[in-house]
């Protein structure tokens, strides 16, 4: 197929004749990258045919043969997807069982979240410290007050009526914003010189990393109430959020620890030499450098947290995936699994892929900053 020197990293192979005319260049590229030998050519054709067959099966199903409106599955007579199911249930997928008249409240919460994210992510907007403060303190408190209500004439909407994308975002955003700071604390604790603190942090981290997230959820929802004062009825959503934050904090701690270990000892010694204490050393010298080194790891943990939020369906919370599964069991729309899962997949894929693109952008920015 190829020569010995290039196979395992064949991507780096230069394309000869790249100085010629566009057509000649294209032909040369085709010959090099698709038809280097007859076996290579057969392989290329087979792979391209397979990709084509998959696209040929999905695109007409999702677009050309699809039914876009209707009142029940019976209206979907075409051979394609039944998007009428999704449009009929769309508001439930977004808000869950949140009362129809009160849906402006989650709308405001969504707007606040978008504003906070734009503030945090667009490099040109200044005052990132305040953006962090906004995301970690203002947003959670405001969102909770707004969604729960019970003051200034707002009707109380108990959390068992929150659902759909709203619930998924609540779980994901609160998990992401709080697991990183807790993770940093656990990472510092694990590298601390105080043995008792270090053992405590090691024990916690290794425990969380050793058990499935699902059992942590079971622990938070079935087991934890036994240890709370009798008579209190803890909110399952709050317990799930606590479970997510601490579980993911353990993973964040290991990622951050990798960054801490990668810093040369001289950084600590230099900070000591100019008279910095522990916290000033950490917050002004060590952490800013360590966190930069581990951006990909942090984002990977974030993406896995986002995907893990779907597990709350097992303990009976109606996140996006669970509410779509519930919608499929509606007799009017029986048999719409493929459409429902397609939409859930699309939403999760866009969020996860967006996060990984953002991570690559940050890495590139840090790399540029390093060079100049």
């Amino acid at each position: 197929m190829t020569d010995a020197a290039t196979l395992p990293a064949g991507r780096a192979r230069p394309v000869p004749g790249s100085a010629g005319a566009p057509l000649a260049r294209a032909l040369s590229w085709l010959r090099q990258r698709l038809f280097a030998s007859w076996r290579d050519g057969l392989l290329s054709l087979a792979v391209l045919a397979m990709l084509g067959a998959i696209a040929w099966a999905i695109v007409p199903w999702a677009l050309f043969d699809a039914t876009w409106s209707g009142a029940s599955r019976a209206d979907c007579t075409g051979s394609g997807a039944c998007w009428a199911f999704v449009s009929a249930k769309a508001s439930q997928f977004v808000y869950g069982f949140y009362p129809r008249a009160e849906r402006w409240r989650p709308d405001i919460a969504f707007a606040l979240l978008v504003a906070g994210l734009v503030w945090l992510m667009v490099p040109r907007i200044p005052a990132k410290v305040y953006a962090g403060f906004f995301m970690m303190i203002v947003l959670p408190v405001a969102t909770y007050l707004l969604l729960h209500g019970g003051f200034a004439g707002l009707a109380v909407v108990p959390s068992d009526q929150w659902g759909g994308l709203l619930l998924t975002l609540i779980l994901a955003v609160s998990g992401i914003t709080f697991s990183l700071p807790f993770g940093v604390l656990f990472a510092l604790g694990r590298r601390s010189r105080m043995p008792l603190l270090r053992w405590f942090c090691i024990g916690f981290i290794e425990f969380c990393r050793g058990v499935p997230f699902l059992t942590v959820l079971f622990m938070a929802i079935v087991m934890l109430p036994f240890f709370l004062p009798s008579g209190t009825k803890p909110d399952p959503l709050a317990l799930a959020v606590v479970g997510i934050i601490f579980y993911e904090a353990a993973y964040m701690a290991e990622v951050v620890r990798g960054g801490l270990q990668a810093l040369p000892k001289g950084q600590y010694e230099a900070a000591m030499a100019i008279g910095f204490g522990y916290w000033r050393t950490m917050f002004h010298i060590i952490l800013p450098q360590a966190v930069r080194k581990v951006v990909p790891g942090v984002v990977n943990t974030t993406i896995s947290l986002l995907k893990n939020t779907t597990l709350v369906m097992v303990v009976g919370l109606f996140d996006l995936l669970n509410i779509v599964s519930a919608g499929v069991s509606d007799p009017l729309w029986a048999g719409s699994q493929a459409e429902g899962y397609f939409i859930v997949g699309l939403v999760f894929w866009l969020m996860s892929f967006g996060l990984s693109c953002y991570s690559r952008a940050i890495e590139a920015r840090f790399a540029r900053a390093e060079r100049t």
Partner: protein
Amino acid sequence: MGWLYQGLLVAALAFLASVAVGNLHDNLAARGLKLGFDFLWQEAGFEIAFHLIPYTASDNYWRVFLIGITNTLLVTVLAIVFSTILGFAVGIAQLSGNWAMSRAARIYVEIVRNLPQLLHILILYNVALRALPAPRAAISLGDAVYLSNRGILVPALTTDRPGLLALAILVGLAAALALFRSLTGYAERSGRRVNAWLPALAVLLLVPALAIGLSGAGIGVSVPQLKGFNFAGGWVLVPELSALVIAMAIYNAAFIGELVRASIESVNKGQREASAAIGFGWWQTLRFIVIPQAVRVLLPPLSNQYLNILKGSSLAVAIGYPDLVGVFTGISINQTGRAIEIVAMTMAVYLAISLLIGALINLFNHMTRIVER
């Protein structure tokens, strides 16, 4: 100063623990419960659809616990095998010089790893397996393996002395491994070319065959056959198990593919060029230069991924496969109310396996570290 902080930490933990134990005492008293593992000897009273060790509804919860563990381990092992095969293929395909191949592998990775594992499992179970035909019209692969909406049927090895056969296979495996090690060791010391695979394979097959032949145990292969509306014979992988294994293999293969790609790319390009310069071909370069160096980078994250597969197998509960979480943490808590004991036992099982594998990884790292002069 340090001791003051640590004292405060211990005091805070002790305070929390004493409050929690006090609350626990009140809560248990209010519900008329007490802690203890005596419930394990109670009769479970429910059926389990799939089990590797014998079970009836009149067995006790300890048996349920064991069935949960074996079912979890079965899914984990199958998912590890298939995701490793698929993952290596994806990882090597990503590095292919063939543009179509590397693009296809890249697309696969980017689509699959950005979707939740639970979604993969639900799609496989509720959409893909439902679309398979009924047993009467099952898709046949060489008249031995059948795919239908009742699950996947594969030929099974049947014997009237399973203990003997298992022992013989284990002994054969150990003997084959020992022979392989000594032959490759001889090859390395003497510099001669020795084919170590063939003798090892022969020993692997010969030991069980001899054991069966000498003991006169009955042995046969049961091939699934359509009888009426369903199949008879063979080994049935129930739809839940099939969906779970396939979905987990697809999902984890994307991550393993990335690990394999990164580990091969981590081998310095000069190594490959040097290998080509001394006249090694494609396979020799891969076998003697690239793989030994890549494995050192690959194995720690790969075993981490295997642990993720073990932990991810708990998602079985979403489609009703009776794994440890589904059958023990789910049904048994509902029936006995022993939430604390059962959650603790479940976590202890996962934790024990994780720590064991973690220790093995550390041992491996220690053994394969580069010893510099």
